[in-house]
């Protein structure tokens, strides 16, 4: 479509009026009209607190660290979602094992109060039956047991106690002392 193919005329620029007349006015009177958002649009996410197990897969996948596992009280692990940092990539939805995260088409998220932008899901922690320390979440323990029933034996032991039991089992089996 080179220049030589286009026939040029002196008054050709008046064609702009024809183009303008045909297209009308394309301005969208937002917010008095609906914005042009397709059904595929990725907006903010919605975490279902009944399904979330606090495993942290979404935290690992999130590129800008909008999802974080924080401590709200001593030992209680919580999932915090900060919309301010979210890039709406929906990777968290891809990797969530229980499908607890749902994507919405919301993007009108501006607010004066920054606490509106935080969603915090507090999980009840597991309590170690030997030393009483709080670790991980109860739901995570239940989930792991459904996937692999064998672990029911030690799912309610915290990692240190678990390690000690394992070392003791090796001592008993092979003799000697393990440091």
């Amino acid at each position, binding site marked *: 479509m080179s220049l030589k193919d286009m026939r040029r005329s002196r008054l050709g620029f008046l064609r702009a009026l024809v183009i*303008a007349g045909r297209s009308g*006015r394309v301005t969208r009177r937002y917010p008095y009209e609906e914005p042009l958002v397709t059904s595929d649009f990725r907006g903010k996410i919605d975490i279902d607190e009944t399904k979330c197990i606090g495993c942290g897969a979404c935290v690992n996948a999130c590129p800008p660290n909008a999802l974080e596992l924080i401590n709200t009280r001593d030992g209680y692990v919580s999932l915090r979602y900060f919309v301010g940092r979210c890039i709406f990539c929906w990777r968290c939805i891809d990797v969530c094992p229980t499908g607890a995260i749902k994507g919405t088409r919301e993007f009108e998220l501006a607010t004066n109060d920054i606490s509106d932008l935080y969603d915090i899901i507090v999980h009840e922690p597991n309590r170690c039956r030997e030393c009483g320390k709080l670790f991980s979440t109860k739901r995570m323990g239940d989930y792991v047991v459904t996937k692999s029933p064998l672990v029911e034996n030690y799912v309610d032991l915290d990692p240190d106690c678990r390690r000690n039991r394992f070392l003791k089992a090796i001592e008993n089996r092979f003799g000697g002392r393990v440091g």
Partner: protein
Amino acid sequence: MIEYLVFSIVFIALSLLIPPLMDGIERKIRARVHSRIGPPITQTWYDLLKLFEKELVIPEGGLHIIILSLLYVMLAILTIVFTVSMVLMGYHYVLIVIITLFLFVQAIFTTIPFITSNPFAIIGASREVILALVNEVFFVIILGLYMYFTGSPGLLLGSTSLLRASVILLVITLFVSAYVASGRIPFDIAEAEPELASGALIEFSGPILGIFMYSNFIKRLFVKLVPSMLILLPFISNWLYLLIGSFIMAIILWILYGLIAALLGRTRVDIAPTSILKIYIPFITVSILLYLTGY
């Protein structure tokens, strides 16, 4: 006498209030050509008033810039005031006064940016000088020839001797000159925003910018009033009706010019003079020939 005073005041008030409103209408038309909604018609007035509320920042170049800017706006207003009142009065030398005042206004407008030491302003002002050297000179030449052809330095109301081809051709050329002098695309090279970041006006902000912009609007009305009056002159026999007719025609011209400006691109300072001269020289030569051959 009282009538004359009342009409003068009414028309002066109109000519001071209408230009920003017309600019608002022009923006609406441009928006329609762009397929947009555009700002409301009163937006330009709102912008000017908002500018006057802002703090006064003395531009680089000192206090005399402010004084000169005030002089500029006073001259612009004076030009309109004199035009309106002299026409209503039927003053005999009205065309000469118009030319003088307009040249003063243009001279101050081009000089002020040179005093600021901003390189953008200097480049913008030098472009304006080049354009003015072509356009204003021909403005004077055309009006001078008009006065010579009609034999009077004033307006010959209702005179059918003005229906000669040479005179009409001169007035048509004046319409073109009015377009160039109004600082629209393609000839807004003095304030080319993408190239010079506002060029000649770059050092002005707040009330001073408001003054400049307002004066530019008044100038735009003025340059459209003059050819409108001249073209309607043969057909109207009453000064009042002449003024009313000229105003209406100036408003229509404003809309038309705005439409044309939306359809063209900006020219360049080396191309502009030649493209203008390509129109003026043929027209004026033909007009002189017509006059010499008796038409």
